[in-house]
């Protein structure tokens, strides 16, 4: 049996059979939510949709979506603390996590032990596809706390048989020394933090990250590992393969880049149903090459079901099947943005990830940058702060010219640029806030 798949049958199931499985599992989770959660039942009753109405994918499109703001509202009501969306008795909840609150009041996430096993299972698909095996020693430089982040990655790696080293409250230098001491072979962290660790190792400890034994890094939490220039920077710095992954507290770990690195991510279609909704028409996009908003269902999650959740992630189907042989569809370039991140500046649609792609692609610029958008009268202004690497001062004019040129090509905007000393801009560990739109606070 081929050793490249965690589940060699499910991951290579013919598309038609996979779709039939998804439909059957959708019916099951919809019925579960309808029968066990007052919130879901009243939502569906109001729309006139009952479990027996779901017979096809077209029927699924008629099921009302759930938004994060709805979950926030529910959790402000009784019973404390999850409101009436909980599908199991409270005593069956064994895990509490919450969303980061980047877009507002955090949402609580209850899970049963079965859900937690499921989280680990989702991660087993990811890690096995990226080449993790029981012989790996995995370092996790993550502040274990109320955010789910790499908790499930930890349990997934453990379930798969890896030896897991929790790098919890250690500082960055101590973490690097631990990697060196234990000769760890793999790591999971945000792209921002992976770059920050390399910077500390090189410039404060005199350690070349390439001399360490890390040969694969799984990134999550930010789009960086899906942005080619950022991915290249991390791979060259660490001498390791870098893999992208996307997941969310309310959803689960729903996608992964496989070892073939196809410039995109597979949706785990055995465990999730992903629909892409056209931002203008609201219609479901089936064909490749057209971006839209992801609506996702976790097909097996129990305590607080995730049924047609409006994730606001912007994705598009890729047209080519992956060389790895999986029949799980690919999304091109991973998650390319969020519908609530994409903003108009001077009348031009701007995705912040496009600026990252430019900055990280220019040799001589540091990894950090900051974008500020504000308004003078009726006119938008956009400023970009970048760091010049210590040995690049003499090349400043050439770097600036390249930066202006690339920004114009990739974003169609002109920026007020400012160059700062290396390390002058803030450093982040998770959920970097590099894009600040001051117009929203006016």
């Amino acid at each position, binding site marked *: 049996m081929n050793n490249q798949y965690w589940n060699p049958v499910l991951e290579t199931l013919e598309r038609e*059979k996979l779709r039939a499985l998804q439909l059957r599992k959708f019916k099951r989770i919809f019925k579960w939510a309808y029968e066990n959660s007052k919130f879901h039942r009243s939502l569906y009753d109001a729309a006139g949709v009952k479990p027996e109405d779901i017979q096809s994918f077209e029927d699924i499109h008629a099921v009302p979506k759930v938004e994060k703001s709805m979950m926030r509202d529910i959790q402000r009501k009784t019973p404390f603390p999850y409101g009436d969306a909980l599908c199991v008795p409270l005593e069956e909840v064994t895990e509490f996590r919450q969303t980061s609150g980047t877009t507002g009041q955090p949402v609580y996430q209850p899970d049963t032990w079965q859900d937690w096993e499921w989280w680990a299972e989702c991660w087993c698909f990811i890690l096995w596809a990226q080449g993790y095996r029981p012989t790996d020693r995995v370092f996790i430089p993550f502040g274990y706390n109320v955010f789910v982040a790499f908790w499930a990655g930890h349990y997934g790696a453990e379930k798969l048989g890896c030896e897991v080293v929790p790098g919890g409250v250690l500082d960055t230098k101590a973490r690097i020394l631990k990697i060196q001491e234990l000769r760890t072979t793999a790591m999971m962290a945000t792209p921002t933090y992976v770059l920050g660790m390399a910077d500390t190792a090189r410039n404060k400890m005199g350690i070349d990250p390439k001399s360490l034994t890390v040969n694969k890094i799984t990134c999550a939490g930010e789009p960086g590992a899906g942005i080619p220039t950022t991915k290249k920077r991390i791979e060259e710095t660490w001498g390791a393969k870098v893999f992208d992954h996307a997941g969310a507290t309310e959803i689960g770990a729903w996608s992964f880049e496989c070892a073939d690195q196809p410039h995109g991510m597979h949706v785990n279609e055995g465990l999730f149903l992903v629909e892409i909704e056209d931002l203008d028409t609201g219609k479901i996009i089936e064909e490749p090459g057209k971006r839209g908003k992801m609506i996702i269902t976790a097909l097996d999650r129990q305590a607080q079901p995730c049924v047609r959740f409006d994730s606001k992630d912007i994705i598009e189907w890729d047209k080519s099947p992956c060389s790895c042989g999986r029949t799980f569809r690919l999304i091109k370039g991973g998650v390319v943005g969020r519908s609530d991140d994409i903003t108009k500046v001077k009348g031009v649609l701007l995705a912040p990830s496009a600026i990252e792609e430019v900055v990280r692609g220019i040799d001589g610029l540091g990894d950090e940058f900051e974008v500020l958008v504000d308004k003078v009268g009726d006119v938008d202004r956009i400023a970009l702060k970048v760091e010049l690497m210590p040995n690049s001062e003499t090349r400043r004019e050439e770097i600036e010219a390249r930066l202006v040129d690339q920004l114009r090509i990739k974003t169609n905007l002109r920026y007020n640029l400012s160059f700062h000393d290396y390390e002058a801009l803030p450093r982040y560990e998770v959920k970097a806030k590099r894009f600040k739109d001051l117009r929203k606070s006016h």
Partner: protein
Amino acid sequence: VLSLKEAAKDIKSLSNDFPAVQRNISRIMASIKMLEINTADFEKY
């Protein structure tokens, strides 16, 4: 997998006053559910 599930249910039904059995069988049932997801859910395909 389905016979494992039935056996686990039987043990659970007998474990009311025996926390050590009840909690361990709950964990075993969660693992059996993962086996179902990975096999029995799509065996007819």
